[in-house]
């Protein structure tokens, strides 16, 4: 809430501000909350104080919306973005929903960054919309994106266009991440990204890399910054109608079960959570098959499991659907 200055609202003159400061009232929050003390003061400062309170209330209240309006709004503005992988789409109830935060959690090498690449390529090539990719681990490899695009189309111009629709923002610490997200919120996603088409997804890979160094120990600001990041991501998702995808690490809880990192507070932030794991098959050590488990969802029952191949984004449509259940032994051209 803002510091009281003269001219902020009609009736708030300089003398009134000085008088309020003398009574130790400096911010608007105070004026809104303490009604009884206000009434006592009003006898001294005149009814201007109560008028100011009314103005502040009008400026800062949120207005209730009826359920029907909300439903209409939702139907017209929500879009479902396919991830490009049919098994993942099944888990996500046909794809990433705009206006929501989805989280991918997994250990090292479990495929989170590959899924993010696949989603970005699918949105920029198939749906011809822009994607904003906030990279905090240095894991973005444009040559891999090109490889995935080359499998989808042989036309070099289309590939270059699709690459241009993916905007990359490298951020390596929490302050740059907060600055970047504030920039999106103030300036709007259209201006933040330059490529053609509207922005449909914001991918943050990974959110735990910048937040985990500031949590715990003698630092007392970590939780507040984490909550600020959460608030900004949710506001961006809602206001700009984009799907937000974040990646996170995993830890083990008391029973040895996998759960997403960053603690209890962050666990409430995403709407959908998917846990990725490698398959421990005794025969092959190098395999690109992963299992995805639905850990938190508002639309589907939890603990649904699907297996998928990380290489499916690197293959064209015919190879994907013409294989009819055969494992990948043929080398795609």
């Amino acid at each position, binding site marked *: 809430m803002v510091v009281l200055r003269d001219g902020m609202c009609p009736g708030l003159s300089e003398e009134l501000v000085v008088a309020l400061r003398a009574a130790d009232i400096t911010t608007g929050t105070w004026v809104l909350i303490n009604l009884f003390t206000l009434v006592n003061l009003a006898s001294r400062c005149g009814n201007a104080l109560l008028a100011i309170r009314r103005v502040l209330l009008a400026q800062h209240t949120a207005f209730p919306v009826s359920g029907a309006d909300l439903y209409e709004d939702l139907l017209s503005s929500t879009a479902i973005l396919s991830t490009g992988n049919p098994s993942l789409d099944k888990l996500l109830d046909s794809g990433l929903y705009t206006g929501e935060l989805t989280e991918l959690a997994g250990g090292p090498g479990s495929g989170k960054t590959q899924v993010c690449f696949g989603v970005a390529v699918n949105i920029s090539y198939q749906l011809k919309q822009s994607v904003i990719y906030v990279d905090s681990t240095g894991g*973005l490899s444009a040559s891999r994106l090109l490889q995935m695009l080359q499998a989808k189309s042989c036309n070099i111009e289309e590939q270059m266009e699709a*690459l241009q629709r993916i905007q990359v923002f490298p951020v*390596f610490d929490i302050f740059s991440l907060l600055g970047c997200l504030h920039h999106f919120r103030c300036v709007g996603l259209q201006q933040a990204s330059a490529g053609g088409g509207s922005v449909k997804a914001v991918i943050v890979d990974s959110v735990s890399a910048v937040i985990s160094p500031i949590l715990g120990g003698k630092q007392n600001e970590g939780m507040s910054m984490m909550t600020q990041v959460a608030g900004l991501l949710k506001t961006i998702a809602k206001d700009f109608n984009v799907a937000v995808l974040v990646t996170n690490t995993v830890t083990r809880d008391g029973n040895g079960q996998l759960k997403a990192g960053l603690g209890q507070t962050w666990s409430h932030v995403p709407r959908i959570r998917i846990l990725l794991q490698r398959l421990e098959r005794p025969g092959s050590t190098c395999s690109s098959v992963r299992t995805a488990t639905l850990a938190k969802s508002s639309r589907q029952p939890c603990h649904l499991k699907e297996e998928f191949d990380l290489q499916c984004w690197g293959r064209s449509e015919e190879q994907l659907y013409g294989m009819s259940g055969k494992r990948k032994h043929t080398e795609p051209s």
Partner: protein
Amino acid sequence: MQRDISSYAIAPSVKVKLLNAGFLSAADLCDLRPLQLSKEACISQEEAVEVLQAVRCESGQERAAAGRLTALELLGREQELGTIVTFCSALDMALGGGMPVGKTTEVCGAPGVGKTQLCIQLSVDAQIPVCFGGLGGKSLYIDTEGSFLVQRAVDLAQAAVDHCGLLAEDSEQQEALKGFTVETILSNLFLVRCHDYVELLAETYLLPDFLAQHPGVRLVVIDSIAFSFRHDFEDLSQRTRLLNGLAQRLIQMATNHNVAVILTNQMTTKVWSGQSKLVPALGESWGHAATQRLILHWEGTHRLASLYKSPSQREATVPYQITGQGFRDAPPSDQPKASDDPSVRQSGSLSKRPRTEEDQSTRT
């Protein structure tokens, strides 16, 4: 839109004083002068100047937008940066040409499997002249275990010079060979010795300045990160925090200064439900720190290198050996199992033509 003061990079004690004085968002500070601010918030004038600089209304947004680029521009930059060869062509092929510049790579392995040998080999290979397909850069070697031996570096440097000498075809390469001798290799190899984790952390804070002063450095090797952090650290959560912060600083440095960062890690045994397995040390959360992870391990008497985690390359396991001349391919006669790797190309990976897109693309 008002941005909270708590989201700026200001010292916590100053933030508390600002909040107590009633300044909650950047808009409150926009039109104040340092003297006014220091009086109202009871902070010193220098602190007031710093706060106003950090909070100045447009600068944060410009900084956030400044680093952005499209994936197409990123592709061009990646292809320009190149890779550092390891002289083991199978490993180079699995890595997509060699160790990538601008990313962090972690090399894990049991004692004696060849991590330090690989690091010394890479410090020499980073200096191979551009006309031979190398980067022509300098190397920085941060040694925490004391395992860097100059005599071994001399052997490897001599072998690299001889190899290039055999490859030299035309006058440009002969000219470059004159500047590529054992003496120049050793003089372009900067060595830092850190004895504990405090020295190592201090060194990483000083590295950006060092890299700005020596723009020719293309490789930073830290051998090893595990050693300083595994010994007498009571507070494991503090260790995780320090390591995560260190990883972020290293990747920031790798991206901003275009260097390849190689970290060496040790192995530890994980025991669960009656089974035991060798896993990289420093915990599961450290696994996310490096962009790429290479695990070196034994298979009987053979040495194998597995690419465990990579954003752009497929997982693969390749054999290698350590010879008197350094890190090389394993002889084709005794390859235990080359899974996912059909053929091992024995031709020299150094040639005169610059690396083109066909070289860099991998088979899926």
